[in-house]
């Protein structure tokens, strides 16, 4: 069996489990039902804005909750069935095995992020192609941050606990920076407290950079290229950090 076997098997398991049919149905229902959420009979042009918002919200939920749960289950299955011994016997190193599993998860996130953004771009209000591409890249990178951590953690915890940790980490990344920013601006706060909240703001992975709901719904213009590259590098940096932590968890089992 070749070394790509791990990824191929994971993809094949997902294909044969027909989980993708659920996702396709969810996107189809969103596209059809979204206009019902707005008074389209009064203003028919509201339909496209509603579609963009609902489709991107679905993409966001899938990347932040559904895919981490799926990857946690894949990781747990490797542990429960002791596949690592099998792959080691096939000559695959632990590190490469880990990378292949992470690659499968990252592939899922990439497909859903770019697919969701593409659907929102086609079905939604007019938006420059550069802005749509940037939205896809940043969404995918933000969604990828948690994946290696999930793969590593699933070797220590069962799938349910791993999923909860992953969802919490995503919640922290998407919502804590705004709270920390608001907390440091509270009236009457001392300089020490302000500095503490600033440190919290700094060390939190700012996944909210990858939340492109407003950009897609309101048709914002593309980001300046230098800042877009910085944002991509920042999120990529967090993917690397998460990869390191996940690898330690994976190796030390």
């Amino acid at each position, binding site marked *: 069996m070749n070394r790509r076997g791990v990824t191929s098997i994971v993809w094949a398991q997902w294909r044969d489990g027909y989980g993708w049919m659920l996702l396709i149905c969810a996107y189809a229902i969103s596209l059809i039902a979204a206009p019902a959420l707005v008074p389209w009979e009064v203003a028919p*042009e509201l339909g496209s804005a509603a579609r963009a918002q609902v489709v991107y919200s679905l993409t966001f939920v899938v990347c932040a909750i559904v895919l981490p749960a799926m990857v946690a289950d894949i990781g747990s299955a490797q542990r429960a069935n002791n596949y690592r011994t099998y792959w080691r016997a096939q000559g695959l190193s632990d590190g490469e095995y880990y990378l292949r599993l992470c690659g499968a998860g990252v592939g899922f996130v990439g497909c859903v992020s770019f697919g969701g953004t593409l659907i929102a771009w086609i079905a939604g209000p007019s938006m420059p192609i550069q802005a749509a591409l940037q939205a896809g890249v940043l969404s995918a990178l933000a969604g990828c941050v948690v994946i290696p951590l999930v793969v590593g953690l699933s070797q220590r915890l069962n799938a349910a606990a791993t999923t909860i940790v992953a969802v919490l980490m995503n919640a922290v990344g998407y919502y804590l920076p705004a709270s920390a920013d608001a907390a440091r601006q509270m009236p009457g706060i001392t300089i020490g407290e302000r500095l503490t909240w*600033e440190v919290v703001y700094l060390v939190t992975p700012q996944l909210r950079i990858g939340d492109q709901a407003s*950009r897609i*719904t309101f048709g914002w*213009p593309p*980001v300046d290229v230098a800042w877009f590259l910085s944002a991509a590098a*920042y999120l990529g940096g967090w993917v690397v950090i998460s990869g390191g932590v996940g690898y330690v968890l994976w190796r030390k089992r």
Partner: protein
Amino acid sequence: MCFGGNVKIKLMLAVSLALAVVAQSAVVVARGIWLETAGSRPDGVTEGSVPFSHARINPFAINESGIGKLLADIAIMGSDSVEHMGIPRVSGTEFLTLPAMWLDRLWRSGVPPIHIHASDGEITAVGGSEGDELEMGAAQIAAARQKNKSLVENAYRLNPGNPQALTIILWQRFESAGEDARVDLGSLADYSISVLARDEEHWPEHTLQIASIQIDKWHLAGRPMGEELDALMSELREALDKAEKTKRHLEAIGRWAARVPGAQEQYEHLHMYARNLLRMAESFRSSAGSSVAGSKTKALGENTSAHENE
């Protein structure tokens, strides 16, 4: 095994539990229906005069609860975000460290550096230091306005004592409604006042919020100058006295300094607003010049509008 052994006991336990759950749900549903129908309305408010006239089943019964108030605050924050077309507010406080400054700039680089209001209904807004232009389609503006309306109405349902929700609803409806609707808006304001008055004796800003709603009502009634203005002035005086007295009491028992962040600022802001309006009304009364009535009234109106738009 704590439940091991007798199957009958287990069955009885399960049945009792199920009955308890059903009874609890029935109570909650009944309370929910009661909350949103005639039972919750102030005396004298007739069917159809409050905005949500039909009975609504509310199985969770979270209206006016702590969770309901929290959700109402979140809905108002969401409505503010939608009103600004998703563009977040620019932070007013500088960061202390260079990495945090860079991270803040990185975050801000993703959003257009302009200030725009969906309620203005403009298609294109130009602004910001870099002169960036943000093209807004009519559909996006309409979607934002629709979403804003639904968020604010939900916030009002969850907490009718939320002054921001009430103010936005009052002015949104006043713009679109005719003369007949003013009575409905008045009863809506009365309902919010009755909710805020429930714990007015504990929190001074509630007294001032009630005064602020009275000012809104006076504006919505077309700013009548006669006895109505005198009544408003006396209500403002009473409210200011009462709020100051409650604040002094809270200070005496040591609760004022321990209040949640922002409560003192809210009090100061509302106090200043009510006091300034009272001063303007008093100076207008003392001058008693009919020739300046129009301009003074206009000034009062502008002051209030500025307050609402913050």
